[in-house]
C-alpha cells in the first residue's frame, strides 16, 4: 500500500470525511499525511470547524415545502402585476 499521499488527495479525503464518506483506508492515509504536512493540518482543522459550525442547531433553513409556498404566492402576485 502506498502510504505517501499527495496534498491534493489528502484534502479530498478530508472533504469526504466531513460527510462521513471516507473509507477506513482513506482515513489512515489522511492521518498519516497529517503527521508530516502542516498545511493540510491547518486545512483539516478549519474544515472540521466549518462542519461543526454548520451543524449547529441554531442554523436554520426554510423547509422545501414552505419555499414552494412562498414561490407560488410570489408568482401569483407577479402574474397580477403583469396583467
Amino acid at each position, binding site marked *: 500500500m502506498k502510504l505517501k499521499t499527495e496534498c491534493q488527495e489528502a484534502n479530498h479525503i478530508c472533504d469526504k470525511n466531513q*460527510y462521513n464518506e471516507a473509507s477506513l483506508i482513506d482515513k489512515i492515509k489522511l492521518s498519516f499525511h497529517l503527521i508530516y504536512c502542516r498545511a493540510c493540518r491547518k486545512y483539516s482543522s478549519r474544515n472540521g470547524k466549518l462542519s461543526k*459550525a454548520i451543524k449547529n442547531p441554531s442554523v436554520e*433553513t*426554510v423547509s422545501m415545502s414552505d419555499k414552494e*409556498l*412562498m414561490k407560488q404566492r*410570489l408568482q401569483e402576485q407577479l402574474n397580477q402585476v403583469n396583467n
Partner: protein
Amino acid sequence: MSTNQIDPTKWVDQYSDYLFNYTIARVNDRDMARDLISETFLAGLKSMKNFKGEATERTWLISILKRKIIDHYRKTNSKKGKAEVHINYKDDESEGDWLEERVADPFDKTAEDSIENEELGEAIFNCLGKLPEKQARIFKMKTIDDFDTEAICNEFDITPSNFWVIIHRARTAMASCMEKNWL
C-alpha cells in the same frame, strides 16, 4: 442605468434562508419569521419600481424586512400592554422584600451564548451568498439539507469528481469568509 438588476423569481432560492436566520434572531418564532419573510417578498414585489439599483437586491430586501419586524414588535407590544398586570408597591417598607427578586435569573447566563448562536446562522448564509450560485446551491444541498452525493450529481448532471471539486472550493471559500469571526 441601474447597476443592480432585480429578479423576483430568484428571491426565494437566493435569499430566504439568509432572511430567515436574520428574522429568527430577532423574532424568535419560526412560524412568525416565515410569515414575515413571505410578506417581505410580496411587499418587495409591489414596490419593485422604487428599486433604484443603488443597493444590492439583498440589502434592499433586508430594509423592507426590518420595517416588517418593527411592525411586528409594535403589534405584539400593544397586545402585551393590555394583558399585563402592573404590581405597585403600596408603601416603601414592603419594597424590595420579595424573595423572587433576589433569585438570579437563570436565563441570564445563557443570553450571551444564544445571541452568538443566532448570529452564526446569519454569518453562514451571508458567506454562502458570496459564493457563485451553483457552488452555493450544491454546498447547501450537501451540507445543510443532507442530500446524497449521487442525487446531487444527477440533478446537476455532473460527475462525482466534479462534485468534490465544487465542494472543496465552496468549503475553502466559506472557511476563509467565516474565519475572521467564527472559526
